[in-house]
């Protein structure tokens, strides 16, 4: 059990679980938003703001879970802003997303400055690996409760989208706004709510970054995870369950570098740092097509037109 390969695989398993959690939250949130026919590219900013608010909240109140809640609320504020602005005619949701990305990051850096130094109480992980006497496996299976919250949220959302009245309304709005209006649904209201809820989830993803892994707040905390998660939704073909699987895949890819480092392979460190971005791009190239729009794409999405 202590061969280098086993160590790397175990480290990748642990890394996949840890690294995937923020991807998962952002992707599931974005999935809900896109299901209603709107794209919010600003979740990178939401993620960073969520991380900052969670850290500050946990530091101020002493309760990390309160920090998580505050991060979600901060995320929903940004989501609501996006939702309200994009409701106006002639406003481009992709461009607003870019603006929200810059705005969210700026606000997070501005208010986050005093929290770079102090140490805030972090979320306690559940030692699922305690049964094993292998220390590596034990630490790999130290799973943060937010991981399970994310998986449950994805499963619940997937079920609700398929089986509930609310889910039907969201899907109708996403597939044909005209049809939704014809049966008396307020398209703007639905999209506002889904963008707000998406922001809430992305904020919680940020809380995981600052309160669990890597577990501190600094300005380089998120470098593109929010953006990659948005790309991941395309790969997951707008299904919350597949978003979880895609996030795990990405987590695994992101964990290759640190896993190799743990057995002393430091060469190509920067290459492995770039691996998730390259993987995202590769997946986008592989799953897109110039001839037809992606499978299962909500018909109202700007990308589909």
């Amino acid at each position, binding site marked *: 059990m202590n061969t280098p390969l086993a160590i790397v695989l175990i480290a990748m398993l642990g890394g996949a679980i840890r690294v995937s959690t923020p991807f998962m939250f952002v992707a599931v949130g974005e999935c809900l938003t896109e299901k209603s026919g709107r794209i919010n590219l600003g979740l990178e900013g939401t993620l960073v703001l969520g991380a900052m608010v969670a850290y500050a909240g946990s530091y101020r109140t002493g309760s990390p879970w309160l920090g998580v809640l505050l991060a979600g609320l901060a995320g929903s504020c940004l989501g609501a802003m996006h939702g309200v602005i994009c409701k106006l005619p002639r406003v481009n949701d992709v*461009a607003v997303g870019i603006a929200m990305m810059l705005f969210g990051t700026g606000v997070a850096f501005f208010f986050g400055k005093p929290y770079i130094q102090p140490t805030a109480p972090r979320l306690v992980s559940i030692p699922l690996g305690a049964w094993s006497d292998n220390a590596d496996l034990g630490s790999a299976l130290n799973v943060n409760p937010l991981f399970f919250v994310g998986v449950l949220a994805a499963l619940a959302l997937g079920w609700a989208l398929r089986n509930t009245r609310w889910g039907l309304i969201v899907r109708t709005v996403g597939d044909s706004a005209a049809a939704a209006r014809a049966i008396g649904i307020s398209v703007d209201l639905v999209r506002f709510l889904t963008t707000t809820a998406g922001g809430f989830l992305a904020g919680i993803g940020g809380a995981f970054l600052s309160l669990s892994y890597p577990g501190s707040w600094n300005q380089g905390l998120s470098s593109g995870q929010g953006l990659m998660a948005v790309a991941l939704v395309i790969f997951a073909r707008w299904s919350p369950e597949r978003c979880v699987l895609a996030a795990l895949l990405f987590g695994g890819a992101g964990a290759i570098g640190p896993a190799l480092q743990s057995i002393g392979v430091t060469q190509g460190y920067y290459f492995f740092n770039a691996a998730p971005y390259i993987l995202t791009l590769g997946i986008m190239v592989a799953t897109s097509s110039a001839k037809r729009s992606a499978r299962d794409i909500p018909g109202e999405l700007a990308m589909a037109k």
Partner: protein
Amino acid sequence: MDSGAPAAGEVSGAVLPAAPSERAASDLALRLRAGSEYVAIPALALAIAAFLFSLFLLAIGKSPIDFVDNIWRGGFGSGFSFQNTLQRSAPLILTALAVAIPARIGLIMIGGEGALVLGGFASAAIATPMVGVVAPWLTLIVMASAGVAVGALWIGLAGFLRYARGVNETISSLLLTYIGVAIMNFFVEGSLRDLSNPNKPSTRPIGEAYMVGKIPGTDVHWGFLAGLILAVGLQILMTRTTFGFAARVTGGNMRAALAQGLPVGKLIVACAMIAGACAGLAGFYEVAAIQGRANASLAAGYGFTGILVSFLARHNPLAIVPVAILFGGLVAAGGLIQRRMGLPDATVLVLQGLIFVVLLTSETLYGRFAIFKTAASKDRT
């Protein structure tokens, strides 16, 4: 009505010789009136953003008047600070052009930062073996070519993927930015690292003799002039040539362009490559005129501010210049704001983000004010 109007004009022109020039004058007035909307609404957005930012400053107990005063002093107030502003507006003009040209063909490319970083890195890397061996002027030409070529390839790749595989160019160009920064870090901390500099991983300095000089009589490097020339040149390219016309047709309606038999794929890749070349050139000037070497300082956020500049200028290459100077002043005054007012360096980011959000919100105002409407535009709607 449409077909009748020119005929009537011709007839009256034949009878009264003064009529055509009168008509031209009123044509200009009408165009000015319609065009002023594109100045007034962004200006209004700027004012609203400034007002909201003032409220923000008041809420955290800082004086907005001090803020304006510091921006004035740090960015525009003296000859020294204004030259500093122009210096900083050079990369902004170039990275804004990198957003504006693809925008004309209907693409939202936001990868200017990556092309700047890689272009700058390529310049520094290719210079390393040439310094001390090849004459400075030749080295600089090679450096600039390398920066332009690498930048063009980088954003051109996003354009190519868009056309050939339908990959969303906004996401891919931003991903390429992260990859570009990682590539630079890989070399700068690895094989190309200057081992005599333990503080900050950098390439070897190109040395004073190999740097781009200043425009005579000023403290501003030649990159600013290059930005001006490119802005004018690209404006001509996009408005006065067949290429520009075809690009704008494609941006207006891609299906119509395809139906017309326009080479849409080539146009998209060409526009993306022009964009990348501009950003790569910005990287070259950052290395050859400011830093003297490539390191993490290249990723200073010019590429992201350039996005805002281009949107505020409504992707018009000529309008980009004054807007870039305005934001260059803001960037230049950032340090002063930090020191004098005790505000974090992210203050400028907050202000930029706010301006961007308000500006995009203001898009909804177009066509809502009767004052900008001409008879022709009423006909259209």
